[in-house]
């Protein structure tokens, strides 16, 4: 897929280290898809799509390294190179779904939540953040979800998942965040015999499935056969 040049239409400051950028020209992305975003002169990185409405595609970027710092320095009207939408998407299976995120991992799950609510599904979420000032999307999630639980610091989403399951009896889990957290979500889903899907992160080089840099231990390529994998796929990685 070829790089297309798009103009940044709008920028939202989510917190001191997270911004959401909006562009046009992304053709019908699904929740879970990602974009390869090229910042001319400063690299190219994969970024999950966090919303798509009225032809405006949002992606949310946490400042962690040189390329994301360069992204944060961009202004409305600046040009970036986009390849995508790429990769697999969330199935949106289940009628009572649970989202489990850690940190910036809430980004692809926000778009999933918006779509699932539009389909009339019950949507619950447990979102873990390091500190209160790291919390993003709280207002929009509160307006959207049937229940939102936010955990901070040492208390993680896994500390509340059993209790929420007893209360809500969700039937499918979608997770994105640090891998140790997702592995524990995987264990919970397996022991509870629930379906689950995970948005997995790896260093992505080509983004086209040919270089092999992002291969998982099961031989699957995150850039092409992911980033969304279901529980069965991840058996060969976390099982």
């Amino acid at each position, binding site marked *: 897929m*070829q790089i297309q040049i798009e103009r940044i239409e709008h920028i939202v400051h989510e917190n001191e280290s997270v911004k959401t950028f909006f562009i046009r020209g992304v053709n019908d992305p699904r929740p879970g898809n990602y974009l390869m975003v090229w910042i*001319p002169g400063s690299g190219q990185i994969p970024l999950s799509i966090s919303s798509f409405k009225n032809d405006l595609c949002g992606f949310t970027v946490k400042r962690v390294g040189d390329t994301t710092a360069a992204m944060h320095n961009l202004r409305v009207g600046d040009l970036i*190179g986009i390849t995508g939408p790429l990769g697999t998407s969330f199935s949106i299976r289940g009628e009572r779904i649970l989202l489990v995120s850690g940190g910036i991992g809430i980004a692809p799950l926000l778009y999933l939540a918006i779509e699932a609510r539009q389909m009339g599904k019950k949507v619950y979420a447990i979102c873990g953040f390091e500190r209160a000032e790291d919390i993003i999307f709280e207002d929009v999630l509160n307006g959207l979800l049937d229940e939102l639980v936010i955990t901070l610091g040492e208390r993680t989403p896994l500390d509340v998942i059993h209790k929420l399951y007893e209360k809500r009896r969700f039937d499918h889990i979608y997770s994105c965040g640090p891998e140790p957290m997702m592995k524990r979500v995987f264990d919970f889903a397996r022991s509870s015999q629930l379906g689950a899907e995970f948005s997995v992160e790896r260093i992505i080089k080509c983004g*086209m499935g040919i270089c*092999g840099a992002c291969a998982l231990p099961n031989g699957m390529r995150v850039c092409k056969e992911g980033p969304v994998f279901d529980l069965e796929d991840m058996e060969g990685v976390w099982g």
Partner: protein
Amino acid sequence: MVDLSADIGIPLKNPLILTSGILGSSAHLLKRVASSGAGALITKSITEDPRVGHENPTVIEVSEGLILNAMGLPNPGVDIFLNELETLEAVNLPIIPSVAGYSEDEFGRVASRLEDAGFRIIELNISCPHSTALSSKKVIAQDIDKTRRVVNAVRSVTSLKLIVKLSPNVTDIVEFADVAIKAGADALSLINTIEALEVDPYVEAPVLGNVFGGQSGPSIRCIAQRKLTDIALAMWKGEIERVPLIGVGGVRTPKDVFRFLLLGADAVGIGSSILYEDLAIFEDVIEGLEQIMTDKGYDMLDEFRGKVISQILDMTI
């Protein structure tokens, strides 16, 4: 049922080879490709020490069939590579490590390690056009003396079968083929990517992170065919020694493989076209090649291999 067996110094069940640089970085992926129908796998190029490679964008599709890359030889280094391959359960086809380096000694040391680990055949990647950061300087395979020295160095320390991968970015590829063979190459693979560059007209900047890259994909197939033919003609005429040839460059369809075989290739590499056909390409191409051979009444590759080279020889003086 036609017989697709081929020989590049070692026997292959079919002539399709996963080319270096594509998917061959982890044991898990190699295992997957091994079950996809290829006759042999060439790994990503391995250096003595780990290399992270160049900054993204490292691979871009400029247009359908025109791919540029500047990966910069990312690899875990020979030690980790060998540990990784130990985890690979036995696969029933040859795995051919590709070796790269920055001096003839490094090539020799890595080759020795691979021989000690039990490999029988390696490919020497002396022709990656963008392996040093922002380098527009000549690579080994563009310098006759360096080509001779590197192949000699490896030949003198191992008895491995050596495939030498040649660069198309030279005036006379036959001269390089001759030098590589005389220095100890048992087979040649060609072509590596073609020196290339893309610039974006909107942001007014080079696109690849490394600026300079190499072109691959179906857009280079006819160039590869020409270079292969130049070498095959010299071999058929007896001007240079005859060794097995692995034709590489833009192969996507069964007809493409058939073309390379008509032009004297003993085996055919498949690489960038995986972007379009994914791993199914190997089974699909084998099925299509069998169909072409059945339709034409061929039972084995040697019945038509090099047929067009003989024809060209008759047409030229």
